[in-house]
Structure formats: C-alpha cells, structure tokens
C-alpha cells in the first residue's frame, strides 16, 4: 500500500502507539458467503496487508468452534485487534464483542465487516466482482481496526421508581406487577378514570364474558395497591433525563372539585340542568356537565366539564360534602423515575371524514364500538339494540369487516381483532334476539388464537351468515331508512343486492391522538403505520431504542386483550431488571470534547436532541454528559474546530475506511 496512508495517522489525537496485531476471520456462513465469495482468496489477499498477523476461514465463525478459533488465535498470535468478516453487525456484533472480551481484549477492538448482506447475497451471479468487493470491504475494516481505541461502557444509577403512561388494561398490568414486586409506580391516565378502552366494551371474545366485570376488580386492585399512585385526568408534559433518572412533569387538569371530599354520590349530576352527548357511550345518550365518568370509574369521583358548565352553581348547593371548587387551577407534579412504560393505547378508525360505507351520511350505519355500547346493559338503551333512525329493534343486521384496515386508501395493515369483534357482536345479538338475521361481509376471517376458531364455528352454528366480499355500493332507502348494499359474493361469483335495518362497521385500530406527543417526549420512533416502534420486532418486542423506556399494548401495533396484558407484564419484567439491579449500563460510544481545542462557541449545544452538551460557564468549554449522550455524532460533524470527536467513529477511523475503499492498481495487479 502507499506511504500516503500515514498522513491520516496524525489526524486524531492520542493514537495508541502499541504495535497493531490484527487477526482476520472470514466466515463462509455455510454457502451464504462461501458459495459466492472466494473466501480463501480474500483471506490470502488480506494476509498480505501490513499488521495482519493471521487470517482464518471458518464455515461458521459464530459457532462454538468458530469462536474458539478466534480465541485460540488471539492467544497464539497475541492479537490486539480482531476483524470478523461475516454477516451484519446489527445481529452478530455483540456475539463477537463478548468473544474477544473473554480473552481480555477490550470489546471495542472488534471490527465487523459485512460481506454477506452487503456482498454475497446481492451479487449472487457476479462471483469475481463479489470477491473483489469483499477484499475491499475487509481491507477497509482492517485499516479501521488499527485505529480503534478501547472504550468502557459506563454505569449509571437507577431510581427504583417507575412511571406508567396510560391506565388501560396493559398499563394497569404493568403497574400491578411492578407494585407487587415492591416498586413505587406512578400511573398516569389522561381520562378522568382508569380502565381505558376495555371499560367500554360490552363483552370480550372468545369467551363472551362481561368486560367491566373482569376489568372492574382489576381497577379496584390498582386503586388499593399502596405502591401505585394513580394520577388520573393528568398528562405527561415534559420528560428529561435518561435511563435510571428521568425527570417527568405531569400536568393535572382541574376537576373543579376536591377529590378528597367528593364521595362519587352523583347528587350533583341529578341537579345539573345541562345535558351533553355522553362520550363514554360513543355519543349515544347524554350526561350532565358535572358527572361521574361511568358507574365503575376509578377513582369514583365527579368532575365538571367547564366547556359546557353554565355556572348556575346548583351542584355546589347539592353537594353535601362541599367538594365543588369552581376556581380550581391546573397543577403540576415533578417526578423522578428510573424507567418509563408507555401504554398509550389506541383509538378506532373514524369512518366519518371519508363516509366509508355511508357512515355519517346514513343514520343506520354505525361503528362496532357504538354497537358495543348499544349491547351493554349499562349503555344508553339498557342493552336493547335499536337503530338510530327510529329507535326500532333491527331484524336484518349487516356487519362490514376491515373498515380502515387492509385497505390501501386508509391503513394497509390488518387490525387483527376486528374479525373476532364482529363474530362476538353477531353472536351476542343472535343470543339476545334469535329472530334477528346477521350477515358478516368479510375479506378473510382471521381467528388465530386459542378459542377463536371455536367461537367462529359457534357463530356459524348459531346461524350467522358469512359472505366473502366488500360492499361496492351502499345506499339508504329514503322512506324506510334501511341500508341497501350491492356486493359481490366472491365465493359464489355473483353480484347480490341486500337490505339491512342496521349496518355495523368493524373499524380498525389506529394510533391514539396523543401518540405523536408521547413519541416526541420519549424520543421514540414511529413505524410506517403511525404506531410506535419496538427495539426489535421479534426479540425485543417491548423494549424501545431508548434505554429504560418500554412499550405495552396497542401503542406498538394492534393487539387483543391477552396480548396487551402479556405485554404489560413483559414490560414490568424488563423494567425490573433495571429497577432491581439499581444500575444501567450505557453504550460506550459517546461524543468526547478535547478541552484544549474547544473555543466555547456553543455551536454543538443546539445540535444535541438529548441536551447532553452542557456549557461549562467557568471554563467556557462544552462538556458532554456521558449518561445523556446517545452517541449519534451529530454535534461532532458540526464542531468547527474539531474539538469534538465521536468515540469509535472518530474522523481518522472513518477516513481510514474512506481511503481504503480504493487501491492503487499496482497493488491490485
């Protein structure tokens, strides 16, 4: 290689002067790499590079024998740098870091070169070119490896308290599990009562047990637990800090009454003259301007909806305990917690703006959530299913599946639960009123978990009709207000005209309103579907890319209740690792300031989205708080003097790679 390579060595500072002894391990990955890249030719070529003491080709470098080979050669050749040319560092870097660390090498002395995903797999029919490319890639890695510096992952203390955002069934499960393990939990809920969506369901599939009957006791259990502090009607307004020590600001919206004095007797509601549509019943029926959210609410306390209050003060006169306080202000609480669990839930797709299947145009087209409230004994009709246009009990009921799901015009994903919701709703109606006639219009019926297929079969046996197809035309009869549907029966291969007294849309699961705010506050990523991203879809389903932040329930994708509850428990388990150990390990890769070069210009400070760079007013220098730094290196690229460097991605390390993309032809010859 050329002598000009040495120029760059002076670029960085403190380059270790110790002789570099590099071992290069080329993996064949069975035939994944070996079938395309001539691994022996790569190893032979790399063996000629200065500093490379040994090269080795293994069938599977990640296997026990492959790792044993690395460890034996580290010992035999006294290696101080290891280059593994194999698959992707995103999956296997931790394996080999641990492997070399066992031999007493700093784990950051590993350089991982991707010659499978980025080479053999994408040049399957260009073996020679792939081999040449592999040589380049490994050469780049070897030259970079020589400049790698030892790093230490650092430890930060963890406050043994947890914040759970969202008190639906997933969040409540997390809170209960953590509390039962002895940790203090703050459970924040934006609604005036905990319980979430599940509190609004009538019955839950596949067993059709009463939703609030199984949820209610759990809500009470949460309220009784001494380790759980419920903060209802409250929202997270700011999050600062990092794993182990998050500073969180909670905003408490005013209820306009003293919850300590209120008994939830609802005498105030009786005298309140204002009636507004009842949101808990999906807008069916009315509630008063002062109201208890629902009979099983926890906390069972009233609140005043100030937007609709006319200040007649009748409630204050009626309240025996003198709880009403019209002057109540928004208040705030600052919390210090070690971990955060986001269980921010979902909402159902709103078919109103697009008037899907006539929703919003025709009275007798309603959503499954609305139907759920009509079925409910505590609902607006006392459990009698009636149609909105004339309050008559419908006989012919149509159910349309996949509304706002599996549709490129709305959401392409499957919401997973709606098939079962429809099947359950049809069953419940059939059981209540056997004379009714149900038709489920579906694309596919999906019943993957325990008891679901049995429930589907049960509904068929009950006489519920299943019609594969999607309505192409929905009209309202102007006189009868019946819904007329034109649909292709794709199994029979014919067009059919149907008439229903009531049509129910199974609307899918979509991101909750506040999800964008939570995403920003917790610095999480959003997936293409608008829901939050987990750290790994298979192996880290409740972790996020932010240490100490976990996700449960529908915030990270559509889920049924057992799945959401499992995730709630999973989050508690994952969080306990941190809470119990009382410490967290943070990544060794961070930005580092060279104070001799820093001129205190503060350009870097606004670059950091984590507020990790503080300005030392006394020294007039930038100062990186290691525990806050996530190691992105954005500040480094912005530093005009070169005082900032990103460890493991230092300029000289990256430039060594850039330079070694190329070779002089005489070397290649």
């Amino acid at each position: 290689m050329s002598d000009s390579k040495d120029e760059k060595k002076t670029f960085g500072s403190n380059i270790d002067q110790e002789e570099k002894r590099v071992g290069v391990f080329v993996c064949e990955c069975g035939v994944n790499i070996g079938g395309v890249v001539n691994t022996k030719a790569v190893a032979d070529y790399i063996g000629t590079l200065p500093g490379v003491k040994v090269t080795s080709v293994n069938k599977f470098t990640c296997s026990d024998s492959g790792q044993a080979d690395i460890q034996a050669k580290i010992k035999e050749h006294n290696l101080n740098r290891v280059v593994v040319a194999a698959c992707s560092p995103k999956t296997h870097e931790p394996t080999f870091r641990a492997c070399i660390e066992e031999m007493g090498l700093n784990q950051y002395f590993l350089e991982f070169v991707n010659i499978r995903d980025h080479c053999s797999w994408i040049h399957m029919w260009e073996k020679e070119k792939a081999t040449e490319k592999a040589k380049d890639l490994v050469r780049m890695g070897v030259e970079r490896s020589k400049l790698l510096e030892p790093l230490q992952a650092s430890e930060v203390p963890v406050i043994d308290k947890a914040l759970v955002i969202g008190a639906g069934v997933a969040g409540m499960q997390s809170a209960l599990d953590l509390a039962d393990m002895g940790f203090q939990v703050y459970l924040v809920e934006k609604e005036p009562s905990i319980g979430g969506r599940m509190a609004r369901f009538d019955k839950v599939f596949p067993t059709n047990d009463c939703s609030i009957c199984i949820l209610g006791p759990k809500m009470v259990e949460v309220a009784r637990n001494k380790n759980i502090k419920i903060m209802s009607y409250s929202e997270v307004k700011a999050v600062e800090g990092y794993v182990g020590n998050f500073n969180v600001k909670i905003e408490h919206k005013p209820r306009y009454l003293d919850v300590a004095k209120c008994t939830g007797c609802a005498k105030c509601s009786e005298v309140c003259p204002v009636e507004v549509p009842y949101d808990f019943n999906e807008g069916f029926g009315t509630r008063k301007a002062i109201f208890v959210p629902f009979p099983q609410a926890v906390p069972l306390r009233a609140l005043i909806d100030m937007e609709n209050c006319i200040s007649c003060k009748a409630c204050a006169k009626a309240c025996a305990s003198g709880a009403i306080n019209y002057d109540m202000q928004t208040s705030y609480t600052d919390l210090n917690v070690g971990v955060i669990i986001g269980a921010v839930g979902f909402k159902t797709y709103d078919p109103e703006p697009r008037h899907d299947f006539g929703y919003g145009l025709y009275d007798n087209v309603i959503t499954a959530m609305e139907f759920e409230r009509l079925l409910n004994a505590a609902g607006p009709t006392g459990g009698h299913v009636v149609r909105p246009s004339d309050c008559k009990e419908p006989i012919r009921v149509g159910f349309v599946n996949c509304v706002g799901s599996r549709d490129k015009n709305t959401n392409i994903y499957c919401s997973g639960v709606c098939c079962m919701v429809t099947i359950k709703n049809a069953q419940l109606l059939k059981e209540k009123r056997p004379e009714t006639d149900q038709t489920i219009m579906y694309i596919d019926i999906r019943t993957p978990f325990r008891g679901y297929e049995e429930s589907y079969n049960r509904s068929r046996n009950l006489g519920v009709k299943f019609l594969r197809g999607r309505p192409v035309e929905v009209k309202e009869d102007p006189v009868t207000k019946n819904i007329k549907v034109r649909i292709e029966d794709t199994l029979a291969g014919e067009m059919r005209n149907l008439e229903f007294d009531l049509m129910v849309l199974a609307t899918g699961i979509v991101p909750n309103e506040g999800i964008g705010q939570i995403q920003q506050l917790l610095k999480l990523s959003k997936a293409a579907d608008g829901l939050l991203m987990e750290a790994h879809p298979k192996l880290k389903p409740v972790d996020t890319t932010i240490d100490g932040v976990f996700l449960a329930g529908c915030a990270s994708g559509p889920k049924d209740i057992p799945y959401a509850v499992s995730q709630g428990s999973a989050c508690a388990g994952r969080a306990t690792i941190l809470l119990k150990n009382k410490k967290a390990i943070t990544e060794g890769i961070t930005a580092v300031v060279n104070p001799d070069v820093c001129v205190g210009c503060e350009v870097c400070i606004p670059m950091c989205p984590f507020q990790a760079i503080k300005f030392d007013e006394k020294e007039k220098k930038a100062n990186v708080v290691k525990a806050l730094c996530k190691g992105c290196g954005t500040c480094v690229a912005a530093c005009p003097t070169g005082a900032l460097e990103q460890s493991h991605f230092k300029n000289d390390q990256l430039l060594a790679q850039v330079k070694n993309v190329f070779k002089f032809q005489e070397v290649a010859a």
Partner: protein
Amino acid sequence: MSSEVAAASAPAAAKTDGWEPKIVAFCCNWCSYGGADSAGMGRFQQPASTRIIRVMCSGRIDPLHVFNAFLEGADAVLVTGCHIGDCHYVNGNDKTKIKYKYLENVVHELGIEKERLQLNWISASEGEKFANFIRDVTAQIKKLGPSPLKPEGVA
C-alpha cells in the same frame, strides 16, 4: 493528496463497458444500513459498485468525509439516513438535510456533476428501495464515466 493530483482526470480508457464505478455510501446504523441489510435478506441484486461505511447517524457525516471520498477516487458519494421524522436520534437527519444543501453547492461549484453526490432516506425495511437506488446511481455514473477528481492509478 495534493489538489493537482486530484484534479487530474482519469484516463478515458477506463470508460469501457466492463467498468464498474466505485461508489462510497455513508449509511446510518438504524435505517439505511438496515435497509442495505434488508436488500441482502431479500436477495435484491445490485451492481458491485458500492462500499458502505457505517455511521451511527447521518448527522455524523461530515463534509470532510465526502470531500475525502472524492479526492481518494470515488465516482459517486451517497449520503443516506432515516426518513425525516423517523431519526433514531430524534432529528439528526434534519441537520444532515441542512448540511447537505451547502455541501451540494460546494461540490457542484468544484465541477462535479450533480449525479455524483446524492441524498436518500431509506428505512431499515426498504431493502428493495436501497437496491433500486444503487442500481439507478450506478447506471447514471456509468454514463458519466469516472470522476474528474479520480487520481491516476486508483481503482
């Protein structure tokens, strides 16, 4: 590398059919590097033109790295990262975007064709997009021939 050497244009003989350009692609660890991995997992075949350099965030990509790549002999340089709004580090890619605008101007003023420096946002799931991008850029560069900044004798 002196600027005179860098300015010397590469021999025209290299501009043959069999010529494979050398493209340096900077990829962020979380999105575009994952996109390149996904391209591999999906076996989306690409020309063997590109050498990927991994950084944690596209915000780390310094104009210095890009200029060095051109001076060393890159026929094209690709700056890639997460889609705007999806940055693993909240908004590192917003800063990349701003920096890139200036970088683009400087590179063009140096007489480098606009095809030789490209920016693209590719998520970890967009393997096919990654492969298509590499195919497109490689075809464009093959038409242009070697970079005018490529030093003599460099492959």
